[in-house]
């Protein structure tokens, strides 16, 4: 029992990170109709942006977080306007392949600038708290709190602001959004900005929890897509739920199978969702 609860704590932690990535990926899918394969690498570059801020200005990671989010959001908008915008009118599969190329370029860029070896934000060992039989690192609480805060901000944005509603409208019915006079390109830019910023946050949290590595985001792409599909493609609230479920399932699976198979668990859930409930937990618009 104690082991299960401990794994659930770890699962929620991983789930929060996945959720932040999945919200962005699902919003991008909702508005632009393609699976964004460079999303994991947005996470990675966001984590590295934060690393530079931490080392150059000697700041705590959480202070570097907003800078990394801003830079990655800006980069996402830039990449969209330079690369994706030109091919938006052709088939979505072309966008998908272009995003694959973008992923490779970003990863190589990271290796070029920051090197290919493991890095950490803070050297040294952080002593975990012992609460009864459970262990919890102070960083974990920070990650929970920050992730919950970001999810709340996204919720308020989507449900209260004009731009947030326009984004949901475009995801719902693109043609109607256009004849209503909603400016598509501006909504798309906001979507990339928010998707990129959330990916950066996920990357920074992942870096805090583990380490920084050029493929850190790429390896999480599959669980993120699994969370997106499980939650109903194009549904931000579903993606949050999907992220938490996949995160917990991945951690709990270590009870019965070796930990190296964690991504396979996410993959299995994704396949099962596609077979038995392709619309996701919350009905998506795929």
């Amino acid at each position, binding site marked *: 029992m104690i082991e299960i609860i401990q794994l659930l704590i770890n699962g929620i932690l991983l789930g929060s990170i996945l959720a932040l990535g999945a919200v962005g990926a699902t919003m991008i899918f909702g508005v632009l109709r393609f699976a964004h394969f460079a999303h994991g690498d947005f996470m990675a570059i966001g984590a590295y942006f934060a690393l530079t801020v931490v080392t150059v200005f000697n700041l705590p990671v959480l202070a570097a977080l907003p800078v990394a989010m801003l830079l990655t959001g800006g980069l996402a908008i830039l990449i969209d306007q330079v690369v994706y915008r030109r091919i938006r009118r052709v088939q979505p599969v072309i966008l998908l392949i272009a995003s694959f190329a973008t992923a490779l370029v970003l990863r190589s860029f990271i290796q070029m600038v920051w090197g290919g070896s493991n890095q950490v934000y803070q050297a040294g060992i952080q002593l975990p708290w012992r609460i009864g039989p459970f262990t919890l690192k102070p960083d974990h609480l920070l990650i929970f709190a920050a992730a919950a805060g970001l999810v709340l901000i996204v919720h308020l944005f989507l449900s209260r602001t*004009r731009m947030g*509603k*326009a984004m*949901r*409208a475009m995801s*719902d*019915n693109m*043609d*109607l*959004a*256009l*004849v*209503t*006079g*909603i*400016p598509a390109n501006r909504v798309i830019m906001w979507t990339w900005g928010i998707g990129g910023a959330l990916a950066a946050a996920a990357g920074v949290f992942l870096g805090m929890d583990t380490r920084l590595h050029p493929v850190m985001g790429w390896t999480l792409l599959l669980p993120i897509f699994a969370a997106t599909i499980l939650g109903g493609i194009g549904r931000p609230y579903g993606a949050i739920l999907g992220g938490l479920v996949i995160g917990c399932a991945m951690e709990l699976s270590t009870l019965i199978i070796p930990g190296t198979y964690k991504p396979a668990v996410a993959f299995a859930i994704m396949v099962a969702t596609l077979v038995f409930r392709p619309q996701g937990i919350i009905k998506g*618009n795929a």
Partner: protein
Amino acid sequence: MSLLSAEGLYAGYGGVDILRDTHLRVEADEIVVIVGPNGAGKSTAMKAMFGLVPVRRGQVVYRGETITNQPAERMVSRGIAYVPQEANVFPSLSVTENLELGAYVLRGSNVPRMERVFEIFPRLKERRHQQAGVMSGGERQMVAMGRALMVEPTLLMLDEPTAGLSPRLIDETFERIRGINQLGIGVLMVEQNARQALAAADRGYVLATGENRYEDTGPALLANPEVAEMFLGG
């Protein structure tokens, strides 16, 4: 000066002209209906005027200003609102949110605009927190028209507003359209229910294979034996 006029329109998809030398005109405060057999280019004519189908020749003029092939955003800002035939609501959004988005191009408070829409469609006020996707066909049509009215248009374009509705709702819809028109909003609509639509309209156009065939007042078209025989099913 007409509210909206189209002169010698040639338009279509992928180099094939569906419209050939089509002309249409809507005066302010008028209800104009386009009828005709399937594939006559009725919807295409309306879409071409709203800039959704590229116009290759001819021009569209709104209050003396040429607006041919302009993006929808600009049409809506000018006061032209368009309601598509199908998929004309945002299903996962609430009624209120659907209406709010209708006024996206406008600044200022949406409250008075929404009150006006609720006066026309009291049913929407009752169901304002409902998700549009789970509403009945008739209610969805109200949301769609309400969304278009939010932009305080001078011209409302309706693509088959009674498609798929029950006979009782069809009558109700035409009555509403007349009510909207009495607020000083010009209406251009495409209709399959040709008899009822012509009865509700000030003027009508009969289109066939993308060309103008007849143009007259609603009652005169209804009384025209040729029109009745060829286009209204005898």
